[in-house]
């Protein structure tokens, strides 16, 4: 491989490893003398735990250790507090923290909550013994639906937290919004449910913990997408260790989507067991347990109200959300329905007034934590659904209604009523470009083809506004090795999206060296002193900027050496396309790197290895990716089956590092949005709290044939000035735009039947029933009890 540039469609260097079965995932790692752990989980959604009898289990063949709450209490291990970005209630009092220990203490509060850890020689022995751990439960009434949980008569999860309310929140101009609603020509209200889903990464969670008594240090190999933050939490919050006693390493990780960002209970349990036994302890979650014990996402019920003037200009948007956060305030769980879903409310439209209010509510379910988008897909869905609904109710063209309300370019930079700093973009341009793509694909012909098959045809367009998030700091270190390789260690975390290629590409392009010299390391607390992992579409924005910054600083470090080699002065040097030049002479960066390791070629004052360099980049203000999705849908009215007939996307991600990888991010995100819109749904029995969708037999994941071909375009005309690369973040936008595009396309197809709203997932049965019922629907049915 030779030189590469930023913006080049470079093939993924990691794919040879992945596609030939040589990836090294957590279950590929086995340490000498390792024992195997299985978690005993609560079969009840809500129950008092009276006693735990481990005698029969401990007597089983091969059993080495059973960890219970008694151990946790005796050791004085702490609970894991939530790090929600919003920590104060509306009245200024602190968010209600729920004591989340790694094992249930007095009560179990969701099906699947860990109650004990059984460690044995083999997984089968551990499983057999786990079934004999005798837990004496007294079942308690459970509450599953967050709206129901707010009722005065609802079962209470926490004795010291009244009304199951963890956090309430408001943002925007309440008075101005109310006034606009009171005076507007049109006011339209719709209750919307954003269904509860889970990430289902192809690799389940798992870890291997090891302890070295000689040094009193631990190593944790963990299928995590955020090793630094979780190292800190495991060491300092739970196990009372110094951070540097724990090395936290993620090997190849098979998908995360947020669900591997969280601080889970199993790794500290294994670390503790490893110390107790003096042997490594390995734990691998089963797929069935994953549905119970991986964090869930979305799960919000909202009332959305839009005010318009007589001409259809938007005057105000008001959203009132109730978000289930599960039994505990998990790693950052309460943030998603509050601050997370607030920021991009209103999308890329001009809104004189906006008001967002919400409540994060405890329920007897697995807990919520970020799932790809974490609040922004909900915000976009609420905004785009109420616009589509208003257009239908007011007999306006939904495309025209959007067109006339988009923020014009001259309005930017603009701070939205939600406080989002929209610095750059051209929303009308992207809107028209997307319409052109769809029209060029032949919307008229697609409609005719659908109708010829007896199907209904629908089309919808959905502009979106995104924002990045996650840790603001990122570290990149570069090491030049005598064998010619260049080590690059970054604190970001790729769970499959290709950082090994894209971050190396930035370094190689900037230094003008061959890409195949770069040896990439990530997700290792030994390799980088800090790192923000993966989350909030921050990989290129913060990680890429750290690499760029480190590379530019290396060029500066190399200048005295290049000048020495060229027998010129540092200030006379230029650097372009990987070459330093001065006067008539030039020298390549590769040569300068070679010289930097040769004491004979170095000037006085420079030592071999002098180009090795680390840099920390810190983001100031989050970026605002934006774009437009459009979808065409065919509906079979006899069965309710939907087929997507076309899909078009224009994205403004700022600078594109590698369009092929960006395409992958968009397609994957759209696939997850389509999954949520049509198939995926976590269902608990509303009375007992038993998980009904506990396997892939009942939890529908999209297959390849559910996903249409997509036409994707990028607008790179306005890179952001918020970071030196000019990137805006690409990772989550796909699933932000997809749900409203496809749902609104289906509802467009159902116009003839009077159907104006169906809550996700739009399964064939729900579509069929909506047609059969002639669109009968209560627009204020979901939130009536709490509004």
């Amino acid at each position, binding site marked *: 491989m030779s030189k590469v540039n930023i913006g080049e469609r470079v093939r993924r260097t990691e794919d040879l490893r992945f596609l030939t079965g040589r990836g090294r995932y957590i279950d590929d790692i086995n340490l000498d003398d390792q024992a195997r752990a299985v978690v005993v989980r609560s079969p009840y959604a809500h129950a008092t735990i009276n006693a735990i009898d481990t005698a029969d289990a401990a007597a089983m063949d091969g059993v080495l250790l059973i960890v219970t709450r008694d151990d946790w209490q005796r050791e004085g291990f702490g609970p894991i507090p939530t790090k929600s970005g919003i920590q104060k209630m509306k009245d200024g009092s602190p968010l209600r923290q729920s004591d989340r220990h790694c094992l249930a203490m007095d009560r179990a509060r969701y099906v699947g909550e860990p109650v004990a850890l059984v460690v044995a020689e083999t997984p089968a022995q551990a499983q057999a013994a786990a079934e004999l751990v005798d837990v004496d439960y007294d079942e308690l009434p459970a509450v599953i639906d967050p709206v129901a949980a707010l009722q005065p008569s609802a079962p209470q999860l926490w004795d010291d937290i009244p009304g199951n309310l963890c956090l309430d929140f408001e943002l925007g101009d309440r008075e101005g919004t109310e006034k606009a609603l009171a005076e507007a020509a049109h006011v339209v209200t719709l209750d919307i449910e954003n269904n509860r889903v889970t990430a289902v990464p192809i690799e389940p969670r798992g870890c291997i913990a090891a302890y070295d008594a000689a040094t009193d240090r631990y190593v944790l190999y963990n299928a995590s997408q955020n090793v630094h933050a979780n190292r800190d939490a495991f060491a300092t919050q739970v196990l009372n260790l110094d951070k540097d006693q724990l090395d936290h390493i993620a090997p190849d990780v098979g998908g995360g989507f947020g669900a591997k960002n969280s601080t889970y209970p199993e790794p500290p349990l294994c670390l503790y067991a490893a110390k107790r036994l003096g042997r490594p302890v390995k734990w691998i979650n089963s797929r069935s347990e994953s549905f119970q014990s991986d964090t869930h996402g979305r799960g919000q019920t909202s009332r959305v109200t839009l005010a318009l003037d007589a001409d259809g200009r938007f005057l105000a948007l008001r959203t009132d959300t109730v978000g289930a956060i599960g039994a505990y305030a998990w790693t950052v769980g309460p943030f998603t329905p509050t601050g997370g879903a607030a920021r991009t409310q209103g999308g890329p439209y001009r809104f004189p007034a906006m008001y967002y209010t919400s409540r994060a509510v405890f329920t007897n379910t697995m807990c919520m934590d970020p799932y790809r988008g974490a609040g922004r897909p909900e915000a976009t869905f609420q905004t785009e659904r109420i616009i589509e609904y208003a257009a239908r109710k007011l007999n306006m063209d939904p495309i025209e209604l959007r067109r006339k309300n988009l923020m014009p370019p001259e309005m930017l930079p603009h701070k939205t009523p939600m406080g989002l700093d929209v610095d750059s973009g051209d929303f009308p341009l992207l809107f028209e470009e997307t319409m052109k793509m769809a029209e060029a694909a032949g919307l008229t012909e697609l409609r005719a083809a659908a109708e010829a098959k007896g199907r209904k045809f629908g089309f919808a367009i959905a502009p979106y506004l995104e924002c990045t998030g996650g840790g603001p700091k990122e570290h990149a270190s570069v090491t030049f090795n005598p064998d010619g390789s260049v080590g690059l260690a970054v604190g970001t975390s790729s769970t499959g999206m290709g950082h090994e290629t894209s971050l190396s590409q930035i370094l190689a392009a900037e230094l003008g060296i061959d890409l195949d010299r770069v040896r990439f390391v990530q997700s290792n607390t030994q390799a980088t002193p800090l790192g923000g992992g993966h989350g909030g579409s921050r990989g290129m924005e913060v990680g890429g900027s750290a690499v760029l910054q480190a590379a530019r600083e290396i060029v500066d470090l190399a200048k005295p050496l290049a000048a020495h080699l060229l027998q010129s002065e540092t200030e006379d040097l230029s650097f372009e396309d990987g070459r330093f030049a001065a006067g008539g002479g030039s020298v390549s960066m590769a040569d300068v790197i070679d010289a930097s390791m040769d004491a004979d070629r170095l000037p006085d004052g420079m030592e071999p290895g002098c180009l090795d360099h680390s840099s920390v980049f810190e983001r100031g203000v989050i970026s605002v990716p934006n774009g437009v999705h459009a979808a065409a849908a065919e509906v079979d009215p006899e*069965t309710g089956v939907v087929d997507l007939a076309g899909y078009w996307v224009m994205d403004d991600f700022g600078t594109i590092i590698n369009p092929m990888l960006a395409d992958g991010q968009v397609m994957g995100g759209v696939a997850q949005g389509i999954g949520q819109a049509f198939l995926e749904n976590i269902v608990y029995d509303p009375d007992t709290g038993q998980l009904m969708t506990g396997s892939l037999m009942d939890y529908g994941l999209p297959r390849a044939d559910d996903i249409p071909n997509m036409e994707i375009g990028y607008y790179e005309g306005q890179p952001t000035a918020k970071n030196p690369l000019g990137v805006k973040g690409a990772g989550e936008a796909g699933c932000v735009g997809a749900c409203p595009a496809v749902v609104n396309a289906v509802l467009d197809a159902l116009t003839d039947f009077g159907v104006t709203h169906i809550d996700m997932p739009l399964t064939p*049965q729900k579509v069929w029933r909506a047609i059969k019922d002639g669109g009968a629907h209560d627009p204020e049915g979901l939130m009536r009890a709490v509004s």
Partner: protein
Amino acid sequence: MQDFHFTRPDDLAAAGQAHQASDDGAYMAGGQTLIPVLKQGLAMPEDVIDLNGIADLSGIEADGHGITIGATTRHASVAASEAVCQAIPALADLAGRIGDPQVRNRGTIGGSLANNDPSADYPAAVLALNATVVTDRREIAAEAFFDGLFTTNLNEGEIITRVRFAAPDRAAYEKFPNPASRYALVGVFVAQTADGVRVAVTGAGQDGVFRAAEMETALADSFSAGALDGIAVPADDLMTDMHAAADYRAHLITVMAKRAVARAAATA
């Protein structure tokens, strides 16, 4: 998974003896149901008796009247069989739409019938085509074979050896897949045979596969989709689950039956 003793006998007699000798033996053909339930601990047999070592249990034979399929013949083999495609294309089509490629390369017709999953595809074909299930002891008419959810009239230790299908005049199978599992939420096999029209429905009945008598009568008068206008199977005896209520299944049965008739009429 609990430990078990594994045997792979060479012939039927040895398989039967192994079963008789075990307190709790399970036959395995393709293992596409048995292995998952073993892994989940839902079945914990002491002995697993693998039937794949019995050579003459597998294969497809055609005669002038129809097709005979050996019990351990894979779904993929049935789907790809020229003989089946010629004699009963609807059966090859059905086999080619069972599960996914992995399932089709392992799963067998005998295993599917012996298991009698209410959402399996093969029972609809066997019942609609009035096939004969041949065992190591006797021949069982399709009508007498299926006996409710996961239940058949096979006796303890009895092994299906092959299934004999007479070629229909025309037939077709239409499946409405469960959106999550892609098992049949409703599957309708329609066959017009020398003995009349038969319509068998899988995926929907509370007691497993069943025949839709009213539809058969209407189609006997006129083998056309329109003949089924206004005819619906009562929802009372149909399954309700989170994916489809009984009334939706009843509706889908009529839709799938009409589509099957239309396809059979077009391909004949």
